[in-house]
């Protein structure tokens, strides 16, 4: 009886799944075109899955092993089941018998994995979605156990006609349940959808260049402004490219993004996981009432709805997502870094912001003023462009216009107008002079890099600033650019390339580390208290520079008290993405939470490497730690290098100790 039922069940499930797959593909293809090499992508899929994806999943060993057992067992069991029970190859002599035993092993492995999945689901952490996901361990068990049991007679452990037809029917029902969830649900939209959409998403990823050892792709993609008739940015879900839609559909709702999102933790109305799920709702059409995870803080689930060609952000009323959700993001990329499905949340948020800014003119709070300033004065504060060098009136900084050719072009950034950052800049100039670096500045020829304009969605202003900066830089000859602002660092290094400006850019921490390695800087021993280091998002996650600042601090003789969240898991200061300008209210402030992290580390001083971080962290009231830029720490510790003649005259002296 089972011999007749099983092939029918298997091929019926496969048939229904193929229909579902076709429907799902049609949903994705509503999106805008995006050129990706299809065959090359499919060929790269195994490597992207086994190496890149598992590199992220492997950060949690238990879940990683659970997934390997369950998914590996399932894929093996599914293929073998088609051979053994679908095509009836198991009964034949020779290889057939081996296939049956292999199928038993695969389903047993999957069953072991499903036990761990079940354990995880007993007291699931808040970040995991509930709803249909709670039945997944049972479905996994049904499939693995059902397949295991129906295979026992095949390999001859049990006699072929064992049990009654009732037992056979019951077993077929269990296998049927398993097939429905595992095969049909994969394309019709159950929890297993992540396997189907996820595999294709990895193959057709919009940023193929991010895969591979040590590779990253973090620069925003330029918006084509040439076509004057085109609507700019993303208004409806169908305005995303098809592979972005596919990426949203791949979400496995693990909530790792939610756990690391600074805006979510601050009680601002953003949850990256919900945002991606809302995009899935939008691409299929309907309401978000079926969502079973944490909502946007302060926004109940079930009030929003959307359709593929309907607006994402309603004008005046509610649609799929509220505007303040999009403006809460600090673009810190913690979600992208953490996402095991390699979904690009920040790209999607900026795409939607572009529409709000460029088409609707609805950038909130102080942002329109900042954008107008950038257009009229080339700096966000609206300062006179001729005042850019006032801070350095006494420093006699060499100008590019006078020298034409130097080793290092020092890019000041808009921190040149900020009194706090001017201290950092002065410290950096002191360090460069101590190391006898051949450098010059652009002076009043420099403009804002366009970082804030771009994150606020004003691509037009960004490209205008970028093109003028590139034209200015093209006039001069230099080996590389040095900056103390990770935002400028990122934009100059990663985003100007698409517009025709390719530069070798250094963050000052990297450059100082290299100067020290080359023996051009000598430091006095550190006499201060305990120190921790805050990784700026645009230096760390955007550019992978975690080591150089730590090497500089080590060279200063500082032993770091690392915060719990440091390195690639560093928590944002709240200053990125124009978030301090759009200023969406929450229950807490992001910099307060970060200073609390500093306090928990026990450090009395937090070293930073970013003007935004400095401003945000110094703005914390009653802070337990002092905020100093790495350049300031280095400048304070500078001692003249012992030249040979002074070394000869050197003799021991009394040292004051108290």
């Amino acid at each position, binding site marked *: 009886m089972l011999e007749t039922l099983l092939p029918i069940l298997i091929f019926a499930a496969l048939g229904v799944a193929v229909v579902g797959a076709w429907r799902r593909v049609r949903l994705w293809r509503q999106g805008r075109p995006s050129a990706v090499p299809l065959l090359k992508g499919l060929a790269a899929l195994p490597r992207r899955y086994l190496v890149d994806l598992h590199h992220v999943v492997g950060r949690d060993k238990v879940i990683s092993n659970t997934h390997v057992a369950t998914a590996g067992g399932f894929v093996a069991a599914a293929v073998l089941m088609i051979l053994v029970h679908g095509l009836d190859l198991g009964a034949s002599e020779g290889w057939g018998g081996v296939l049956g035993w292999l199928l038993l092993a695969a389903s047993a492995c999957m069953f072991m994995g499903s036990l761990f999945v079940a354990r995880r689901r007993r007291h699931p952490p808040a970040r995991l979605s509930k709803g249909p996901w709670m039945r997944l361990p049972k479905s996994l068990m049904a499939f693995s156990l059902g397949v295991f049991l129906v295979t026992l007679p095949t390999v001859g452990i049990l006699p072929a006609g064992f049990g009654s037809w009732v037992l056979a029917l019951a077993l077929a029902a269990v296998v049927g349940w398993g097939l429905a969830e595992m095969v049909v649900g994969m394309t019709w939209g159950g929890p297993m959808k992540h396997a189907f959409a996820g595999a294709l998403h990895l193959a057709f990823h919009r940023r193929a260049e991010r895969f591979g050892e040590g590779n990253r792709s973090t620069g925003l993609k330029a918006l084509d402004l040439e076509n*004057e008739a085109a609507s700019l940015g993303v208004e409806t879900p169908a305005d995303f490219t098809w592979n972005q839609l596919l990426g949203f559909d791949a979400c496995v709702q693990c909530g790792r993004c939610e756990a690391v999102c600074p805006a979510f933790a601050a009680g601002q109305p953003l949850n990256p996981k919900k945002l991606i799920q809302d995009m899935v709702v939008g691409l299929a059409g309907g309401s978000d009432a079926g969502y079973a995870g944490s909502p946007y803080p302060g926004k109940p689930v079930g009030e929003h709805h959307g359709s593929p060609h309907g607006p994402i952000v309603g004008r005046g009323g509610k649609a799929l997502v509220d505007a303040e959700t999009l403006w809460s993001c600090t673009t810190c990329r913690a979600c992208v870094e953490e996402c095991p499905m390699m979904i690009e949340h920040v790209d999607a948020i900026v795409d939607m912001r572009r529409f709000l800014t*460029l*088409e609707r003119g609805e*950038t909130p709070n102080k942002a*329109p003023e900042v*954008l107008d300033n950038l257009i*009229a004065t080339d700096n966000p504060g609206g300062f*006179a462009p001729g005042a850019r060098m006032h801070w350095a009136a006494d420093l006699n900084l060499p100008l590019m216009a006078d020298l034409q050719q130097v080793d290092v072009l020092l890019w000041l950034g808009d921190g040149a107008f900020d009194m706090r950052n001017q201290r950092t800049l002065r410290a950096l100039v002191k360090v460069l002079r101590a190391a006898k670096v051949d450098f010059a500045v652009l002076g009043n020829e420099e403009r804002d890099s366009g970082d804030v304009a771009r994150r606020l969605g004003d691509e*037009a202003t960004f490209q205008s600033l970028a093109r003028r900066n590139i034209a200015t830089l093209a006039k001069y000859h230099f080996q590389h650019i040095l900056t103390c602002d990770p935002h400028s660092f990122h934009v100059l290094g990663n985003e100007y390339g698409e517009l025709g400006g390719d530069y070798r850019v250094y963050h000052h921490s990297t450059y100082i580390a290299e100067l020290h390695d080359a023996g051009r800087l000598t430091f006095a021993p550190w006499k201060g208290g305990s120190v921790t280091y805050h990784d700026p998002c645009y230096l760390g996650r955007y550019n992978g520079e975690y080591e150089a600042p730590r090497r500089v601090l080590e060279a200063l003789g500082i032993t770091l008290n690392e915060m719990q969240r440091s390195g690639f898991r560093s928590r944002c200061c709240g200053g990125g993405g124009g978030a301090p300008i759009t200023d969406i209210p929450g229950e807490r402030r992001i910099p307060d939470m970060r200073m609390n992290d500093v306090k928990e580390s026990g450090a009395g001083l937090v070293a930073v490497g970013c003007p935004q971080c400095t401003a945000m962290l110094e703005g914390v009231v009653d802070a337990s730690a002092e905020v100093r830029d790495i350049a300031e720490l280095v400048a304070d510790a500078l001692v003249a290098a012992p030249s040979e003649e002074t070394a000869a005259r050197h003799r021991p002296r009394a040292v004051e100790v108290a």
Partner: protein
Amino acid sequence: MQPEHQGVAVTVLVSVGRHPLTGRARRADQDARGLELALGLEERLPGSRINLLHAGPRCEESESALRGYLGMGAGTGLEHLTLLEQPEGADAIPALAEHLASATPQLVITGARAERGEGSGLLPYALAEHLGWPLVNGLAAVEKVEHGVATLLQALPRGQRRRLQVRLPAIVSVDGAAPAPRQSAFGPARRAQLEVTPLAAERDHELAEWAMAPARKRPKRLKIIKSASARDRFKAAAAKAEGGSGQVLEGVSSEQGADAILKLLREEGVLPR
């Protein structure tokens, strides 16, 4: 009775502004406030039509500044701007007056003074004179328009407001008291249409004779507070400007009025004694 839901035809006169620090062309602040006022009116009075009108030369710089106004029209009916093309240095007033007389809008909104060129602030007055329409300056809000009569809120110094009624058509001018302009969106600004009408230019001969120099802030007379206590200094800073030496002339002939003004100007040293 149903309230009258008839829209008004509004023409907003817009000029090419000048950023105070960099001198770059932009939408002029006061004119943008005027457009904001008109857009607010359109939201409240469905069926209203807004026309933008500019008289001046057409070049890349002025066009991008004028498109700044059109970018404020995202999601509204505002889609085009009428440009009366004139060479640099031509007198805008006859061109505007002629166009307004034939287009017959009910309400004309303009900024109080331009940010470049003469910037005398006389244009609304000259237009009102030409057209024979009433003029209200320093407008803060248009409260309602019913049966061809507009109820306006005029801004006076120190936050005071005066409610006025005026029969349309009328010219109103706005300054810093009007609502702040909304953001200008790049996409709609770029797509909007400029309707260019070339015009026989009338040269502004008086303007041609003037020497132009960058405006400088006029020196302010220092108010010296001789007081030791902080409370007195605060009171002095917060107090109304003293109008002690002022003089209200009522029921005097124009000669007497002119004499009084001349006398004051001589006393203040503005005119030679």
